[in-house]
């Protein structure tokens, strides 16, 4: 089962993990891996705003989830990515993968978080406590990490 959500609302990672455990067929599933990305408290950061491209975002995430499911024979995948404004400590992104064994579950989870950073149309803007804002620049390191899955 593939579940992809793009939403402004907060999500609960524990609830999502429990839902994936229910969705993954017992006979074929041996493990679940997950990653939850948080808004890091970098010094003067008051809030993080995520803009996205409605329509393309969902398509890009569904395409990545399908690719991961086929490449690692996953039994269930969940990808949730928030947009809008959030504060340090809040969860932005959640990826969970279920598979017969640990290696495909862990690898596909890493694949999804690496590749969504370069393939999904989101843009981060940092809001400082003094009200100034700046768009976050893309990192070469993220491109390198995504490239290792080619």
């Amino acid at each position, binding site marked *: 089962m593939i579940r992809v959500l793009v939403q402004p609302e907060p999500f609960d990672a524990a609830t999502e993990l429990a839902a994936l455990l229910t969705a993954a067929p017992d006979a074929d599933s041996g493990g679940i891996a997950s990653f939850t990305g948080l808004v890091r408290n970098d010094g003067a950061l008051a809030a993080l705003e995520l803009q996205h*491209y409605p329509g393309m975002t969902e398509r890009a995430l569904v395409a990545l989830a399908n690719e991961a499911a086929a490449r690692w024979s996953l039994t269930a995948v969940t990808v949730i990515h928030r947009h809008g404004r959030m504060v340090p400590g809040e969860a*932005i992104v959640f990826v969970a993968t279920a598979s017969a064994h640990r290696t495909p579950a862990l690898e596909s989870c890493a694949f999804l978080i690496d590749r969504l950073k370069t393939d*999904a149309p989101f843009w981060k803007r940092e809001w400082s406590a003094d009200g100034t804002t700046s768009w976050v620049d893309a990192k070469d390191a993220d491109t390198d990490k995504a490239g290792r899955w080619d």
Partner: protein
Amino acid sequence: MEIRLLYFAWVRERIGIDGETVVVPAHVATIDDLTGWLSVRSAGHAAALADSTRLRFAIDQQLAQPDTMLVDGAEVAIFPPVTGG
């Protein structure tokens, strides 16, 4: 050829609008041609589109390259490198 443009992040801010629909002349065949043609529409367009190495593109919601050919009625998005996750 009619193109529906969408702008995101600082490209949107510099141009000052979320998007626009334009009818391009016959010599505008690729995305690269399109950004060149758009850049003289206003000072904001010029500022947003000046450095092509900092721009990324999508045609009909699929990532595209500067040499990708345009098609009539396409939705073309112009934005900085993505920073989600």
